């Protein structure tokens, strides 16, 4: 069974990769808005998507760590009680 630190570390690495992906996506469309109107519109959508994608990745890291540790510790507690 994984330790609590191990779970947090794994979630952290996953979220770092996703946040990095979001930042790369955001950076990839820098300057695209100056190319054409259609590209400017696409850049706006991609910018919005990468922003919320990055925030969602970070929120998932916090929430999932908390939820998984809470449920796991609760399950261990119940198992220790013999329920």
């Amino acid at each position, binding site marked *: 069974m994984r330790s609590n630190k191990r779970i947090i570390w794994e979630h952290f690495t996953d979220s770092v990769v*996703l946040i990095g992906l*979001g930042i790369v996506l955001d950076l990839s469309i820098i300057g695209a808005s100056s190319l054409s109107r259609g590209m400017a519109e696409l850049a706006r959508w991609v910018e919005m*998507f990468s922003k919320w994608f990055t925030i*969602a990745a970070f929120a998932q890291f916090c929430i999932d760590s908390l939820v998984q540790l809470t449920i796991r510790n609760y399950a261990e507690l119940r198992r220790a009680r013999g329920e």
Partner: protein
Amino acid sequence: MRPRLAFRQFEFLSYLVTAAVLGLAGMFLQASGATDLLVASVIVILAISIRTSVRMAQLHEWEPERVAKGPGVRIDDLEERCKACERENGRLSADLEETRSQLIKLKALEHELVSKVLESRIDDLERRYKIREQQDRRLSADLEQTREQLSALDAKIKITEKRNVSAAGAT
């Protein structure tokens, strides 16, 4: 280890898909004119519900190897538990049979003990009966002897009375 990697890949994919879905939701909400605070709140609420649902579904599957190996492992686990239960059941049945046989033996012993107690009581009663019989015989003999003595005494009294009467006639 391959199963471990598969499990981690599954987790990462789950993160990626959820983040993408939430990113799309945020994008459309922001495009429709929602404020950043509202969009962030919706994303956080959706993230909480999605992650909680996923983790609650895995509540009984904390061991990553088990999840990684798939439902086959669960079936194997259930079969193992079933076999263990059958073994336990067999052991309990054997215990029950043994207990039953012991109970039958104990009942037989109880009968034997009761019969022995009764036999000893009968012996005791017979012994006491014999003693009483001997006492009765002895008392009968005593009675007979006493009667004989009494008749002898009666005879002596009669003789004495006759002597007295003859002596009185002589005087």
